[in-house]
């Protein structure tokens, strides 16, 4: 999809020929291109290594959704304002719409598809179903990717805006979870149920740690 198909080339040339001095394309024809328009990268997505040739302007989000057809990661704004496109890169959560695919050569990406499928849901996904942590479902993969990363960040001692004491262990309190999840908008307003789901998983994890 990233380069024009041959079938349409002649038509484009015809147009260019008729408007030689007006077209940005015309300049490209005479001047040397600044550089290649596409780049081939290798990314590991959900454990599988993928070689992709992408337009340099392609976001990581569109590389996932359009090139790999992994459409679980959602596009809500394409501008880093909603969190629907959240996935993890090398274990850290990221708004994939704000990152170009070419920046991720060699990276390991995990998307909702790699977290769990309907027959074998991850505990976080199961908790979202149990607590009805969504309605339309469009923000949901992003919420779940974020939620899992939030618990990891808390466990790793990464402080947030609401962390009071930086010298003690950070607990997965309601305030910590709400604050850290605030980059993931849910217009359906499932926030309280999402909090309940994350809290339940946090408690399960805490019990697991104690056991």
């Amino acid at each position, binding site marked *: 999809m990233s380069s024009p198909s041959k079938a*349409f080339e002649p038509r484009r040339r015809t147009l260019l020929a008729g408007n030689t001095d007006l077209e940005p394309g015309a300049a490209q024809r005479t001047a040397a291109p600044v550089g290649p328009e596409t780049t081939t990268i290798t990314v590991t997505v959900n454990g599988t290594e993928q070689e992709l040739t992408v337009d340099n302007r392609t976001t990581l989000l569109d590389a996932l959704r359009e090139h790999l057809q992994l459409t679980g990661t959602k596009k809500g704004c394409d501008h880093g304002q909603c969190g629907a496109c959240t996935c993890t890169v090398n274990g850290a959560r990221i708004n994939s719409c704000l990152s170009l695919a070419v920046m991720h050569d060699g990276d390991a990406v995990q998307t909702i598809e790699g977290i769990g499928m309907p027959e074998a849901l991850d505990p976080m996904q199961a908790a979202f179903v149990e607590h009805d942590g*969504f309605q339309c479902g469009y923000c949901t993969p992003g919420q779940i990717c974020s939620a899992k990363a939030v618990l990891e960040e808390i466990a790793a001692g990464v402080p947030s805006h609401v962390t009071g004491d930086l010298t003690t262990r950070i607990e997965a309190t309601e305030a910590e979870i709400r604050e850290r999840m605030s980059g993931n908008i849910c217009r359906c307003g499932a*926030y309280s149920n999402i909090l309940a789901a994350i809290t339940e998983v946090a408690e399960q994890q805490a019990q697991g740690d104690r056991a």
Partner: protein
Amino acid sequence: MQFNQPAGDNLFDNARLIGRPTPRIDGPLKVSGQAPYAYERHDAAEGQLVGYPVVSTIAQGRITGMDTSAAEAAPGVIGVVTTLEVGEMPTPSGMHTAPLFGGAEVWHYHQAIAVVVAESFEQARAAAALVKVDYDVTKGSFDLEAVWQQKKDDNSEPVARVGDFETAYQAAEVTLDQEYRTPSHSHAMMEPHASIAEWQDGKLTVWTSNQMIEWGRQSLATTLEMDADDIRVDSPYIGGGFGAKLFLRADAVMAALAARKLQRAVKVMLPRPMVMNNTTHRASTIQRIRIGAQADGKITAIAHEAISHTLPGGSGEDAVDQTRKFYAGDNRLIVKHLAEMHLPEANAMRAPGEASGLMALEIAMDEMAEKLGMDPVEFRTVNDTQVDPENPDRTFSDRHFVECLRQGAEAFGWVSRNTTPGGMRDGQWLIGHGVAGAYRGGPATTSGARVRLQDTGRIIVETDMTDIGTGSYTILAQTVAETMGVDLDAVEVRLGDSDFPVSAGSGGQWGAASSTAGAYAACIALREQIAERLRVNDPETLSFANGAVNAGEKQVTLASLAADGELVAEDSISFGDFRDEQVVSTFAAHFVELGVHVGTGEIRLRRMLAACDAGRILNPVTARSQVIGGMVMGVGAAMMEEMAIDTGRGYFPAHDLAGYEVPVHMDIPSQEVIFLDTVDPASSPLKAKGVGELGLCGVAAAVANAVYNATGVRVRSYPMTLDKYLDQLPAV
């Protein structure tokens, strides 16, 4: 099936599944990213091209020229469709105000005027920026305040007038006369409008995101001047709508036009920054409310006048509607004004009318209670009515508003609220409590479904009903499983395809009551077919349980009945006039506790509670989600949501999710929802009404009243941003 009289005792009164908390059956697909939304249907059509919209940069005028040559020559571009080449096209329906595409005339800012189609999104986007447009600009006026000043004293054409308002108001012992302002709101659903279109042999298929499949199909037929039978619309998963996707929008029209011209499948998603001005919004309002009451709190006179903006020919916002029915009072005056201007199209957003109207009315009720020295819960209770105040012969089918107030107050602990504005402190925080009433109609409309009994005993239900997050998949499965006596997981629900029977669709909170009744009607038709097979004269004598049908001594499994081929039954429910002879409505009381920081004025909600009366609750899980979601939207309306108008250029400048702020996790406290244990036999065979819009109604006013209670500062203009009250806070 005709619903011509109130439902008697029926199987839903002793239900196994209806009314039980049931997790969403579409849940596992949604949490794993496997539910395909419109733009994601890679499977739907081969060789999909990508269209990127070009939108007008003026509010009103004419396009005098478009130069697409640079765009057409850009890498990857396959073609461009412009509004000029297409020419004027019909407005899609009577519910639209502006056409969506075609012709030289510009009705509003960000109107779609071209679509650039390329092999990839990046190419289409880059090329779209190369389209040059020349305009002949018409200077417009976009100042709602100015029109209000001209019109506000004109009561010559009221919506309703009962008794003699002016005389009664003048004679009243306690009176209130205030103005309130609500800004325009954006639906801001998380999935932008998106469509994929493909033509084959003159027939059009559109995979899209639309709440009302049949409206969408008919609108496409009107716009493209073709036979609706040659159009298929498919929308099984919808990433939120809230009214933004009630109607056909430009994404589908552009995709269809481009696909026709280029003979390839084309997909178009509205870029987020185009959504707010290209599509619809809830109009801003200015409202004046006058209330006169006796010293005992009984309202004797009530007037509600409101103005909103609309494109010429539109109907604006019905912010006065609920005031016609909500509270008693013998003398009444209701006036609606319109200010026609070329802002983007004002149209329905969740709880159209009531959402804005109650933002004003329920502050007015709070102010009035204070003037009377009454508890605001008590003041509302005193003015409850069991009849239509404009027509006392017309009764409410089932109204328990007072019970909402009582149960809500009790559960919330209203008795220990702060009773002195500005009088309660918790450290650095001023604590406030607020209450508001909620009223929203309980409409229902014709809805069809088809059920198909398989030789496995499974039942497939097909209807063009949509699930926009409301829980339709689940309540339809519950309804069919209940009626046919099978387990929930023996039912497969297929939605959103115009090849299926026409349903009520999702809007006006009529979807749940109507579509479950339609599925019930189809099941009853299937039961009749089964009776015929079994040579039983009266289908009512059959009982359906455990995947089998019992006829006297005889028991036959449903699977065996379909052994020679599936049994298919189709029917629809239609609602008789008797329903409209009463007022069928839903009610709620909202309670809020919050803190306002003494120094910074920051508002932090502490807890929220809603007590709702909406007939039988079909699925408490999804119904509760609808209500808490509405409450979240109400918090947004109270505290942050505002599509400010550029009154010079005529558009909404803050038109993305950074400029138009909606609540995030940190804004929302713990929420409690109480459903009254009521049934409304006049509403539907399941005795159910909707809750999806009720949850929003009144919430913003409850927050506003709590802010007043915390600080003693009354804000009558939403949203309650710091600039409106910080300088009036009590001295620290």
